[in-house]
């Protein structure tokens, strides 16, 4: 079957190429600008430099920001895996009264726009003096992260044959041994995939961090946003340089993620709870 033989295919490929060209433009413009000495009203900049990167690094205190981002992301991943995986196991293996309700409760934080629960959450966190600190940012980011781990791990655990656990039991393994010796090794790929997806989501999560971060607890996205708001007094090149740093780190994370998660199998992971 030749693909290029039909007009529908030509139109599709044409539109796709048009989209791609524009995408390259959208990505290329700030990328080029971040290396530009000056760029006004011409096709290309009139000179190139890397000084904007060092300037952005210094001016926005990027080292500090990256450290906070790293701290938040790692804490969120570890806690959400520790809380989420056991829950996912119970959801995958047991039928019990109230399971449907619990499933809906776990689905909502993923489904709802972060603003809708972020504003009341931030209000509560301010009430308990947790907001404005790294702890507050971590807590806020956990709200969608834990359910996300549960939702990705539940189908993963479901596809592990219960007979394997039964077999281990018949071999005399107690519950703790089943978890440590049988389930943990089998779950490693799933946990890795879920962790990386949570990492990507947390690093990219703007709203919740924005609502709960104080000056010392901004992650990279939020500090980027502030740098745009304050762009009037700075060269756009520094903002672009910072955005490029952000995007390249996300790109690295995505490439790692794709090694563990086959994107065309996302559906089984996002399937609604049954």
């Amino acid at each position, binding site marked *: 079957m030749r693909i290029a033989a039909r007009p529908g295919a030509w139109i599709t490929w044409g539109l796709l190429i048009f989209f791609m060209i524009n995408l390259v433009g959208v990505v290329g413009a700030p990328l080029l600008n971040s290396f530009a000495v000056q760029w006004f009203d011409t096709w290309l900049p009139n000179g190139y430099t890397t000084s904007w990167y060092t300037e952005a690094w210094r001016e926005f205190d990027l080292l500090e920001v990256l450290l906070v981002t790293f701290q938040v992301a790692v804490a969120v991943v570890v806690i959400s895996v520790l809380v989420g995986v056991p829950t996912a196991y119970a959801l995958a293996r047991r039928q019990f009264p109230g399971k449907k309700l619990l499933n809906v409760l776990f689905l909502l934080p993923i489904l709802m726009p972060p603003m809708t629960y972020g504003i009341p959450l931030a209000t509560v966190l301010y009430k308990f003096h947790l907001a404005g600190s790294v702890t507050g940012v971590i807590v806020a980011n956990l709200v969608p992260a834990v359910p996300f781990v549960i939702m990705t791990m539940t189908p993963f655990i479901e596809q592990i*044959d219960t*007979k394997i656990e039964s*077999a*281990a*039991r*018949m071999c*005399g393994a107690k519950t703790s041994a089943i978890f440590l*010796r049988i389930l943990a090794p*089998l779950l490693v790929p799933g946990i890795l995939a879920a962790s990386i997806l949570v990492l990507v989501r947390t690093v990219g999560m703007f709203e919740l961090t924005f609502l709960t971060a104080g000056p010392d607890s901004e992650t990279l996205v939020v500090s980027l946003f502030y740098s745009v708001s304050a762009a009037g007094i700075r060269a756009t090149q520094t903002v672009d340089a910072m955005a490029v740093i952000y995007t390249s780190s996300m790109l690295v994370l995505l490439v790692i993620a794709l090694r563990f998660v086959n994107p065309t199998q996302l559906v089984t992971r996002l399937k609604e709870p049954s």
Partner: protein
Amino acid sequence: MSTGAARFAELHIDHVQRAFGDTVALRGMDLTIKGGEFIALLGPSGCGKSTALNCLAGLLPLTGGKITMDGKRIDDLPPERRGFGMVFQNYALFPHMSVRRNIGFGLSMRKVGKTELNRRVDEAIKLVQLTEHEHKFPAQLSGGQQQRVAIARAIVLEPPLVLMDEPLSNLDASLRLEMRTEIRRLHQSLGLTTVYVTHDQEEALALADRLVVLRLGEVQQIGSPEDVYAHPTNAYVAGFMGYRNMLRVTVESVDGENAVVTGEGVRLAGVNRESLPSGAAAVAAVRPEDFSLVVPNAASTENTVSAVVEIVEYHGREQAVEARLPSGEQLHVRTNSRLAPGDTVQLRVPVERVLIFAEGSSS
């Protein structure tokens, strides 16, 4: 393995019941298993045989009844404390462990010392002839090899009872025969006590010391293979034991153990298995191979039926024939004689090979 498996004298399954919501999968099962026996639970899917096995293993909680081993109640012990071995239908090998570690897993759970563990694993591996494959992972093995690992994993513990859940159903025909012999050999040489679940009557007859035929959660018959094969208690068991012809008849007269039944154009004498009174609606069950061809115009036509041949299948030494009775019912016959579609044949069946059962107890 030389020591042989731990033995019990008697295991009582006492009125064990298992319901899933409103559907009863197992209805008051009673069975006594003696040490060293090979028991087969036989029946079609949904008859409760796997349920019974899982209850015995402890993987399914009972909803009624109890199980005792030498007088000790075991049905509230978790599976890991009953100490039974189990072979699963899809083998359920641990995919992340090598053959060796799969087999040794149970021993390490029992905190068996390293040298002892290695010795016993070596022995088990040798027993199932997997020495060359001991460092491979389950995914690298063929179905038959995986099956051997599963068996070795169950018997290395020398358990008092080995439970097997249709262990051969995923193998192809020739391998199935080979493994069948293997299982019987292991059972005998190690002195195991085995409960074996299958839907294949041939497998059950070949392996077991005693058969338990189940239907819709109820035990239909318990007996030795010879007993169940030759003397099924009802039409259902008969159907399962290869009595493919079930002619609808009425009991005409009863004479001691025997009875004469009549149907449309059929009049047969047979064994009255369920002591039906005359006038009762009944089925006459006959195996295809119990018919013999009567030479045309023979003097005696006692206990014969006449039928028209419709389809002839060649099966090597014999032929499988489908013929039609005057009533329109189909008749399955196996014969050595050459027949052709359209032939009218006279078929005789010995009185003791016609089993008369109450109507409605089949399938």
